């Protein structure tokens, strides 16, 4: 099974002066799985993701993403991953098509590839009529689906999603998860953080972070059994209540 590990962290730590945002976390993510990365606000999820994506330099520990070291090979990591942050990060003053073209282009995709895949994508998202509209004019749910599609447009091996469904209605969230499943089926490993426990149930395995540590890591079914509760919601509450850190 060792060959199938695509993300591996051992004692990964990030300190900001005296504050330990991420405290010696260790975990493995297998190729093709949907890995849920849960935790309360301020538990350190975003910091951990930023380290894995090469946006933030770890203070200690080891980690590799797609076989590349997070200290030295960040440029290689960046070529193999997709990333969708909490903040909506497409250009609102560019059109749908222009955003797709821009991100496709900077990942070095050919014009032919961009053209064909854009057509397919617009059809898939039912955005054919909006192709030439400014992204800023789209409703939030559509923007989020587009942002996800752009994050996997260059066919990365892993995609990191940091609270992608924040503020989105249940119907759109459902559609969003359909997109995630499709991506997972095509072989992309999904690394996702969320606050919605129903979404946690959709994951193959979840980890739960409390105060910068990983306090639980298993499949949703196994976790429910372990804590003898009937929902992920209760698992989460059980663990999150032990948190010492004030919500930031």
């Amino acid at each position, binding site marked *: 099974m060792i060959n199938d590990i695509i993300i591996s962290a051992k004692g990964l730590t990030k300190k900001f002066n005296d504050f330990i945002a991420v405290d010696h976390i260790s975990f493995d993510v297998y190729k093709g799985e949907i890995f849920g990365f849960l935790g309360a606000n301020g538990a350190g999820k975003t910091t951990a993701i930023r380290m894995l994506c090469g*946006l933030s330099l770890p203070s200690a520990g080891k980690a590799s993403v797609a076989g590349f070291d997070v200290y030295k090979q960040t440029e290689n990591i960046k070529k193999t991953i997709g990333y969708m942050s909490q903040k909506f*990060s*497409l250009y609102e003053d560019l059109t749908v098509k222009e955003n797709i073209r821009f991100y496709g*282009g900077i990942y070095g995709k050919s014009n032919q590839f961009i053209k064909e895949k854009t057509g397919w994508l617009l059809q898939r998202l039912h955005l054919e009529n909006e192709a030439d509209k400014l992204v800023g004019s789209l409703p939030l749910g559509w923007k989020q689906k587009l942002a996800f599609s752009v994050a996997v447009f260059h066919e990365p091996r892993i995609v990191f999603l940091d609270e992608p469904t924040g503020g989105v209605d249940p119907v759109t969230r459902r559609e969003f998860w359909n997109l995630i499943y499709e991506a997972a089926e095509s072989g992309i490993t999904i690394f996702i953080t969320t606050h919605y426990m129903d979404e946690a149930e959709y994951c193959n395995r979840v980890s739960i972070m409390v105060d910068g540590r990983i306090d639980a890591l298993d499949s949703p079914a196994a976790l429910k059994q372990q804590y003898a509760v009937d929902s992920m919601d209760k698992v989460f509450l059980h663990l999150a209540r032990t948190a010492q850190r004030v919500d930031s």
Partner: protein
Amino acid sequence: MRTLKFLLQKEFKQVFRDKSILRMIFIMPVMQLIILPWAADYEIKNINLVVVDHDQSSYARQLVSKITASGYFRLDKYTTSYKDAMKEIEDDHADIILEIPVSFENNLAKTSSANLFMAANAINGVKAGLGTSYLQSIIRDFNNDIRMQWIQQPRFDEAANIDIRYSNWFNPQMDYKSFMVPGILAILVTMVGSFLAAMNIVREKEIGTIEQINVTPIKKYHFILGKLIPFWILGLVILSIGFLIAFLGYGILPAGSFFAIYVFAATYLLAVLGLGLLISTYSSTQQQAMLVSFFMMMIFVLLSGLYTPIDSMPEWAQWITKFNPVTYFIEVMRMVVLKGSSLSDIRYNLFIILAFAVVLNTWAVFSYRKRS
């Protein structure tokens, strides 16, 4: 190279879609060039004068009419009471009081000498200083006129006279507009080059798109070039618009070559773009960038020789002007536009600005990080 092409396409689309940037780019130079040269004029005119005439003689009247005929003074009040005159000053209606004493004419005729009294409102020191010296020279002139009438000219003048004639080179009409316009153009190019570029990058930080860019394999220098090239071009476009307005509005055409100006401006833009980049790496919000820019702009404008000659600044301030890139550009603009200097005449400024460009950009590139 292909990455750069995508970045440039994106930047240009964004700039041309942003109405406020477009307005700034096209309306700002027009407004500044149309309004400022008229307002920033140092020649003092319309000095309000109160004359307190205790004498009421024909000489006194001759003197007053000579003063008002000069075109620099406006007779605010003609009175016989110093108190009245003082009130005019206190009410801010008048700038200078000229008091003509009793028996001014008599004294002149009998003893060949008479005294006049001048009092200036020195709240505006420039106006007071220039006003009194204009007035003095008119009175001296008047004095000579009287002497000419009275004294028979000796064969040789007893006091040797040195007659000075002026020839104003490079700006023969002493026109402040042709002096100010090149300077204002330099300031405009500076604003576009440094502050628009800084705001643009900080805006990406603020809305979070820069983080998205940072997780892509885009190279640092690609991103930076993608930001600098559009503003480099915009800076040159603004300069060209500015010259067009200078020609249409004031008939100003550089006495020297456009080539020299553009070679310098292209280098200069590299320096100020580096400054913009530097500001952007040290600010995380547009407000911060704005405040820093505002602070720097004040220093740039006031310590660049645009409004006040650098030679008359105290020595420590002259040192500061040497670290102000705007100083060199304004100097070059005035040299080339008014004096017709060639590229080899401005080479000293060109090398200094090149050094600015290298230092600022190196500093900025090192402090711009893709990860924290």
